[in-house]
């Protein structure tokens, strides 16, 4: 049984997606400009993991959308 998401949890999820997005871009910059094969191949694998994290976080929001109240609760 899933409970409604708290405002705090939503804040953490949103901040986390910003973090994951920034990591994707930083890793892409490393893949594009790097010269050490071990680092560039790791960075390109990491892009996939960060994309997966991002999607999981986005999924968590969509899962909780239905049961979220539309009026502030006290």
């Amino acid at each position, binding site marked *: 049984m899933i409970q409604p998401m*708290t405002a705090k949890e939503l804040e953490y999820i949103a901040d*986390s997606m910003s973090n994951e997005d920034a990591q994707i871009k930083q890793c892409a910059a490393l893949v594009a400009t790097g010269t050490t094969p*071990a*680092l560039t191949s790791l960075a390109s694998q990491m892009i996939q993991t960060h994309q997966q994290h991002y999607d999981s976080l986005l999924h968590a929001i969509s899962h909780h959308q239905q049961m979220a109240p539309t009026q502030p609760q006290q």
Partner: protein
Amino acid sequence: MYQQQQQKQSVLTEEDLAGGILSDLKRIVREYATAATESTCPDIRQLFTKLTDNTLALQGQMFQAMQQANMYNTASPALRQELDKQAKQYQQTKQKTNQFLQQTLGGQQSQTLYTPQMQQSSQQQQNGQTHYM
């Protein structure tokens, strides 16, 4: 226009980029751990716990890759006398705490979680049950 297309080189060096990614990963691990402890929904807590684990693994891989590429100076080893000092001091602290436990609870034994593979067998032979106690 042409110059922009040709100039693929970043202003930051590879080491700068990798260092930035590594330090962000360290921060993100902490943030995920904090988010997990402050989550109310079990499914959200589980998600943050998994993300903590995954990000910790990424940070470890990044650190190793940088270390192998000589981009990371490992911290200098702690001196023997410092280890001796801390071990002695915390041995005393432990004894005092055990006395406190004896007085308040009537005595309970704890088992160490630190059991490195190499030391395990010889330690086991010596004291039979627990290691580094």
